[in-house]
Every structure is written in structure tokens, then in C-alpha cells.
């Protein structure tokens, strides 16, 4: 039996604005997502903000009803049999919220242990095990409001594991967590998978996805753009070279100029404090060093390196391809996925 089975899932949101002339805005967040996750697999769902990752997770963990399509978790339908699904799943999301912060970690865990139906005689042992697993032993009697973000995140994970779920949904668990805490978190997730828990992980951190995931689906514009093992996704950009340039003040016009150069397959810029990392994907062997630097004429340039493509480069290529494909299609871009109707 599959752990997760999503078939053509769709989800639209509608909102109303205005009083005298009400307008209803309909936004398609997920537009026909299908995938399967085997038991014990660690499956990654990657995508830019607003791509539909969280909406997909929330349909699978019964918090949202799909507008159409079906999904089953361990054979239970998420729309018609939510309680059976909830008994078998854990849900952990990133960020500061979702805990009773005026209470201690122990009080939080005791309460959620009751809600998740952990046998009273097992609670003390289970809570102690989990506090140990997430490294909060000794701090469990302190109020959560005094916890760092990383500690809160670890407490969230302990909460999500109280009832030993067969399937764990991790929605951006490492967001805002420092590198050491993020490494510990990755180790915890890897251990869970080794223990047989199926994990569905969404993250913005490609290194995290590359290290942990058996398979990855890249979602953009509400649809899955690519699905495969990290190596398979990377192979999509294997015929490319990556030129990484440290720049100070590269604007959109500079990136557009690079994009127009023959032999360039994609350009992305990432803010890194006061500088930017401009990543240029070129055809393998095309020596575009000087022409790329000429396109950045007028701004300060730091280190320039040519390197092998990573999962991040594959991800950027997939998302850019989907965006350019959507631009070509009539009104299909993510930004254009809303329509207004007079209610």
C-alpha cells in the first residue's frame, strides 16, 4: 500500500472584497497535482513561494478540502475519512507559532499527547524519549516563550511525533533556524526515515533536500514541473556549466542583458547580505566569461567561479522554464492565476 497517493488534486481559493459592488476573486493555488509516495520514503516538495506546496500538504493532512481530485494517505481518503488519516499522520510546520508559549514544553507535550490519543501509561516515557530525541531534556520545564526559534522548532517536531505517526508532513521545518540547529534537524529527519517513517518535506533549502530526499517533486504555478531523484533532477542541467559571480548592485536590466546572450540557458540572482550571487547557466563549453562580465559593466564584481551544476541549479532551471512556459501560455502564469468576477 502506498503511503501517499495524490491524483489530479486541485484547490482554488475565493475571496470577496467591496460592499456595494462586491467582487469575488478566485485564485487557483494547485492545478492538478499527482504523485505517489511509497512507505518509508522521504519525499521532497520544492517550489517558490506561492507555488502551492503548503496548500498541497494541507490537503493531504486533512486541513483543506480539495476542490477536485482525490488523495489517500495509507489508503484513507483525506476528504471523506479525515479522522482515520489524522490518527496515522503527524504535521509539523516552521515558524514561531503553534505552541502555547506561556506554558512549559512539558505542559505542551502532555496536552497534545492527550489530544493525539497517546495511552496515559505510555505518555511519560514517550515524552521523555522525544525530549531526548530533539535535545530538549533539562529544558522541558521552562516556558516556551523563553525558547529560541530552533528550540521551538524542535519542540514542534516532538509534538508531531508523540503518537508515532506512520507519515510525517514537515512544512518548511528549517525556516529561520540557525545552521547548527538545521543540521541537527536534518539528522533527526534522516533518523526518522531510517526508523521507517514516511516523510513528506517541503523546504527552500536545496542542500537539505539533496541530502535527505529519496525523490523530489518541483512544483511551480500550482503544477508539478519535475519529479525524480535528486541525481535525476541534476542530470537535467548536466550539459550546462554554472558561472557564479559575486556582484554588488546587479539590477534586473543587468540580468536581462545576460539572459539575451547566445549560449545562456538561465540566470538567477540571490541576495547574500550586501552582495549578490549571480548564477549564470551556460551551455557546456561555451566560454562566456568575458561577455557576461561585459553585461555587468558598471557594477562592482567580486569572485568569479565556474562550477558543476547542483540541485539548486536544476531547481532554478526547472522553475525558470515553467515561468517562461507560463508566460507563453495565455494567462497561465502564477501571477495571473487569479480571476475576478462580479459577485
Amino acid at each position: 500500500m502506498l503511503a501517499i497517493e495524490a491524483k489530479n488534486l486541485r484547490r482554488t481559493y475565493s475571496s470577496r472584497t467591496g460592499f456595494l459592488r462586491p467582487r469575488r476573486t478566485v485564485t487557483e493555488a494547485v492545478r492538478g497535482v499527482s504523485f505517489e509516495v511509497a512507505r518509508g520514503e522521504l519525499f521532497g516538495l520544492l517550489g517558490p513561494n506561492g507555488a502551492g506546496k503548503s496548500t498541497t500538504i494541507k490537503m493531504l493532512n486533512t486541513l483543506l478540502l480539495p476542490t477536485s481530485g482525490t488523495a489517500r494517505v495509507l489508503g484513507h481518503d483525506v476528504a471523506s475519512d479525515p479522522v482515520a488519516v489524522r490518527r496515522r499522520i503527524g504535521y509539523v510546520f516552521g515558524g514561531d507559532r503553534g505552541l502555547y508559549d506561556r506554558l512549559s514544553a512539558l505542559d505542551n507535550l502532555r496536552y497534545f499527547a492527550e489530544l493525539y490519543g497517546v495511552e496515559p501509561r505510555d505518555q511519560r516515557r514517550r515524552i521523555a524519549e522525544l525530549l531526548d530525541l530533539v535535545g530538549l531534556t533539562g529544558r522541558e520545564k521552562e516556558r516556551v516563550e523563553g525558547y529560541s526559534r530552533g528550540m521551538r522548532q524542535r519542540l514542534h517536531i516532538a509534538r508531531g511525533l508523540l503518537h508515532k505517526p506512520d507519515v510525517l508532513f514537515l512544512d518548511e521545518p528549517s525556516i529561520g533556524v540557525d545552521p547548527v540547529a538545521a543540521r541537527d534537524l536534518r539528522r533527526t529527519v534522516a533518523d526518522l526515515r531510517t526508523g521507517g517513517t514516511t516523510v513528506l518535506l517541503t523546504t527552500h533549502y536545496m542542500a537539505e533536500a539533496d541530502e535527505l530526499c529519496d525523490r523530489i517533486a518541483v512544483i511551480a504555478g500550482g503544477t508539478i514541473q519535475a519529479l525524480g531523484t535528486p541525481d535525476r533532477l541534476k542530470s537535467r542541467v548536466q550539459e550546462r556549466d554554472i558561472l557564479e559571480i559575486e556582484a554588488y548592485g546587479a539590477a534586473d536590466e543587468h540580468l536581462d542583458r545576460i539572459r539575451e546572450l547566445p549560449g545562456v540557458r538561465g540566470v538567477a540572482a540571490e541576495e547574500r547580505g550586501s552582495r549578490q550571487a549571480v548564477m549564470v547557466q551556460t551551455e557546456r563549453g561555451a566560454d562566456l566569461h568575458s561577455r557576461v562580465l561585459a553585461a555587468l559593466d558598471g557594477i562592482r564584481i567580486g569572485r568569479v567561479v565556474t562550477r558543476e551544476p547542483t540541485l539548486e541549479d536544476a531547481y532554478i532551471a526547472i522553475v525558470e522554464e515553467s515561468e517562461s512556459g507560463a508566460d507563453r501560455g495565455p494567462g497561465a502564469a502564477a501571477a495571473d492565476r487569479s480571476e475576478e468576477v462580479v459577485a
Partner: protein
Amino acid sequence: MTTMTTVPRILRLTVVGVRTHVSYMSRSPLEITFAVLVPLVYATLAVYLFRAADDPDRLLTAAVGAGLMGIWSSVLFGSGGAVQNQRWLGTLETLVSSPTPLPLVLLPITLATAVIGTYAMGATVIWGTVLFDVPLDFAHPVLFLVAVPVCVLSLGMMGLLLAATFVLLRNANALANPLDAPVWLLSGMLVPITVLPDWTRPVSWALPTTWGSRAVHAATSGGPSAGEVLAPMAVALALGLFYALIAVLVLGRVERRARAAATLSLA
């Protein structure tokens, strides 16, 4: 792991839930100040009114009545806003994604708001004794200590219906304000309902607050018969249970609607 269906399990969940939420609410100095301060103002006004009316024998009734008003206010605003408060805390999604049915998740929260209201009862009685020399001559002291928790329980169960209906209505907070004073007036918390027009009587009878406050007042200053306390207590409990059952039916729809309308989180 077993499911949450058996009676001992439900009782345990309720006790742990009430303890958790009472602890949580009690650790907000602002919430506790408001829960206690407003009834103290009511108690002060009531004591002066009763004294001015040459009715000094009923000063304890005034203090207890102000305490009942405090319990009602706590239930009205706390339970009415229970779902919204959990949404603001970001805990609503974790609560809903648990295998426990939504009414059993919310009942401990609404009961906790009623328990928090008892701070007001304690405060108004102590305030009356210390400041106005109100004698603590309860007609049935033991029954008083039973009647108050029963009143809390029935109001907490009624709070579940408030939580269920308020979540369906937009601007529920605006609705809570105008419900505050009419309900304590119609329930005879401070003045007997016999002084109100006859047409209000059926409304009063339908409110568990009426029977709860009748039981508490009878234990405070009623006649010698214990039945005067026990009978309204039973009616209060039965009405509370009735409203809680309606709430269970409503909440089934509320949850499905929230899943359809994506209103479980703020995002």
C-alpha cells in the same frame, strides 16, 4: 495508539485540557486583571445600590451576583472567541489535525473560560467582606460550593454552543458585547427575574445561566430546603448538556466548512 472514544478517555482529555487552558489563561496578567476588575466594579455598584434601597440583608447576594456576572462575561468573551483565539495563536491547525473530534477539543477551552470566571466570584466575595463588611452567612455553605462548579460546568457547556455559532458568524466579537448585559439581566444574576416583564420569562427559562444563578443564590440566601438549590442545579446541567449537544451537531458542519473555506489558519 488507541482512539479517543471511551468515557474515561474523554474525561481525562477534558481534565487535562481544562488544566492546560486554565494555566495558560491564568498566566496572562492582563486577562486576569480584566476578569477580576470588571466584576469588582459591578460588586461595588451593587452593594451601594442594595444599601441605598435599605436592603442590607442582601449584600452577600449582591457580591455573589456580581461574581456570576463575571463568570458569564468570561464565558461569553472567552468561549465566543475560543476558535479565533486559537487561530491567532497558530494552534488551531495542530488542534484540528489531531484525531480528537473538534467538540472534544473545544469543550475544555470553553470550560476553562468558565473556570477563569470563578476568579471573579472569589474576588467579589472577598471584596465585599473586606471592604464592605458583608457577612459570609451562606444559607447552605456546602451546597454553595457545589452550586458554583455546577454553574461553571453548565455555562462552559453553553460556551461550546457560543464557540460553534460565533465561528460561523462574521464579526462575532461585535455580537458578544450586546449579549453581555441582557443575559445577566434575564438570568436574574443581580435582580430577580420576577421584576422583569412577563414576556421575558420564556427567554430566561431557556438560559442555563438563569438556573445556575438561581441555584447559587438559593445556596447563598435561600430558604432551609436543599431542594431549592438542587432542583435548579439539575435544570442548569440538563440545559447545558442540551446546548452542548446542539454545539456538537453545529461543529461537525463548522469543521467541514472551515476545511472548504480555508479559514483554519491566518495565512
